[in-house]
């Protein structure tokens, strides 16, 4: 059959030009992010600072090297992590609207953070903990990852009884509310200073991560991404549903655990360091599927990383509106950009198709 025979390179990364285009966009977004901010630095100067060691404007050099490069790195890492977290949730729950934020996993991570920040009312604030260096950051990250994993296990347990997508999402929202309520109770009994710190943290920020924290952040995100990539074959099998996956030799329980591990690492650490950032997780996997017209996770995972990075870099650039002295919290920008995208997706597909 000629049609069948012509399909040889089908599963190879389709369309090199798409990748090339995405990488160009990524570089563009990166440069835009580096030059944007309260102090506007021309692109030429950014290049100069990045690629030469000769002295230029010392202030600009300091701003780029100490503030903007770490912030851009954080944006790239968080963009990758949130998108992959969303992709994994959508495949695992076979639900096109699943996302760490929607299913309460981000809320779980927040509870973990709140537990560390507000515990007993006498613990130091997040920033103070971060000041402690490595140990404190690990503590917050660990708590957030545990919180995320806990909620995720719980949601997964419930999801086995529920086949309906909409019901599952509503359950996720309810779990989210419960978790947030628990956090609020904790806030209510904490002293105002700590609550203020916590509230600022909930707005989300890509700027707070530098030095040793960036190292920890990078390690956890890379670990999560590596696990995600290695589990891409499992994710492919799960697209057919549990029974078929099992019949093809997948140990579904182990696969679930691996995926939960990866998502918790990603979402937990991002929530700990940058605050709860929404909407990227829903939108990016759909964009990746649309761009590469595939369901193959070996292609979708890198694609989500690149597209997620581009989007978060752009959102961050918007947050530091050029020339403006104030910086919008990143969470607000992703919501403003992401929510309309999700509405658009819903209108286009008209109904929630189960996977």
């Amino acid at each position, binding site marked *: 059959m000629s049609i069948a025979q012509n399909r040889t390179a089908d599963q190879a990364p389709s369309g090199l030009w798409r990748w090339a285009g995405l990488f160009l966009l990524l570089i563009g977004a990166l440069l835009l992010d580096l030059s944007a901010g309260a102090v506007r630095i021309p692109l030429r100067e950014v290049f100069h600072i990045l690629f030469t060691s000769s002295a230029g404007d010392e202030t600009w050099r300091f701003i780029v090297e100490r503030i903007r490069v770490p912030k851009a790195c954080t944006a790239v890492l968080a963009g990758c992590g949130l998108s992959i977290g969303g992709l994994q949730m959508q495949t695992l729950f076979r639900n096109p609207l699943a996302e760490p934020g929607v299913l309460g996993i981000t809320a779980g991570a927040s509870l973990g953070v709140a537990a560390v920040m507000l515990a007993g009312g006498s613990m130091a604030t997040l920033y103070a903990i971060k000041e402690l260096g490595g140990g404190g950051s690990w503590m917050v990250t660990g708590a957030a990852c545990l919180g995320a994993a806990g909620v995720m296990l719980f949601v997964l347990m419930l999801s086995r009884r529920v086949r309906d997508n909409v019901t599952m999402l509503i359950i996720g929202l309810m779990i989210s509310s419960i978790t947030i309520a628990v956090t609020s109770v904790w806030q209510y009994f904490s002293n105002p200073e700590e609550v203020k710190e916590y509230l600022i943290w909930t707005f989300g920020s890509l700027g707070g991560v530098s030095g040793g924290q960036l190292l920890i952040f990078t390690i956890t995100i890379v670990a999560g991404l590596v696990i995600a990539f290695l589990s891409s074959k499992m994710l492919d099998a799960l697209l057919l549903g549990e*029974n078929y996956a099992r019949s*093809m030799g997948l140990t579904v329980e182990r696969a679930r655990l691996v995926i939960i591990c990866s998502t918790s690492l990603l979402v937990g650490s991002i929530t700990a360091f940058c605050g709860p950032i929404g909407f990227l997780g829903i939108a990016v996997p759909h964009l990746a599927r649309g761009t590469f017209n595939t369901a193959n996770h070996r292609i979708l995972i890198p694609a989500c990383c690149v597209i997620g990075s581009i989007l978060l870099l752009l959102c961050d650039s918007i947050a530091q509106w050029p020339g403006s002295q104030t910086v919008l919290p990143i969470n607000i920008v992703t919501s403003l950009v992401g929510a309309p995208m999700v509405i658009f997706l819903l209108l286009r597909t008209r109904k929630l198709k189960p996977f």
Partner: protein
Amino acid sequence: MNSTPLLVTRGLQTGYRSGGKKLLVSAQLPELTVKAGRLICLLGPNGSGKSTLLRTLAGLQPALSGAVEIAGKAGLSSTELARQISLVLTDRVGGSNLNVWSLVALGRYPWSGWLGVLSDADRDIIRRGIDAADIGDLLDRKVHTLSDGESQKVMLARALAQDTPILMLDEPTAHLDLPSRIRLMRLLHRLAREMNKGILLSTHELDLALQVADEVWLLQSAGPLHKGAPEDLVLEGVFEAAFEKEDVHFDRATGVFRIYPEGGRRIRLIVTATARGAMAEFWTRRALQREGFAVVEEEAGDAIVIGEQGGRPIWVLDAGGAGRQYNSIAALLQALDHLRLP
């Protein structure tokens, strides 16, 4: 034909465990074997445990007791099992953005490396599955746009790509129209013969099963499992007995189920020598049964004589002394209807 058993069960009992309790679905089953090159149909009413048995044999759920030996071994690892048995289930696959080619290619899962990269040999096998199931023109379609019939063929191609000696299908003919059902059964029969696969399928299509199955396993709700060649089971009266319990009459003479209960009115059917061997008798009998007549051989009050005139059948109704002639079954039935009126 190779007759090594691919799968043998020993003292198998299927069912579910809930809490500490065992919920039996089947009684202790006899030794069941699946052999290469044979097509087995698993029949039984709804709720008789067809799917449970299939899932247990396929290793999707544990047996309550007993063992399933596949390729001479019990307790295979999940990958080993996936290289022996492929499944076509009733589960609906929507697949976000999954196209048909990728779905069929997923059949290579138990054979490909840990990242799932396909080799040329894998592609050859996938292509053979696609050709066998004849879905070459569907490859670029998204899975969720397929019709039920197409979807069934695609899932079959995926199972063929898994390249296993045993193929199990759970109600593959459900949701299909009649031609698709027949084509699918014919295809499965051919696969068993040509690719020497052991095929086990559960179905409600008794008449189709009687035609294509090499062996029938008949499950009854709370009864023993009967197995054997379909014709043997019919002759032994097993079908009749099994379905009598469900208040459905299986007619051994014709091999079909009788929908209408046999009525009280008796009528004799006489076929003249010239019309013998034509199909008229068979279809007249069906029409009379639908109208609630019991067709009898011995002398009864009324009789119908089927004759032949100019190459076409004619019916003479011999009732109440008068004999009138009709050119179609419809006209005959109408006349019978009038007779019934006082």
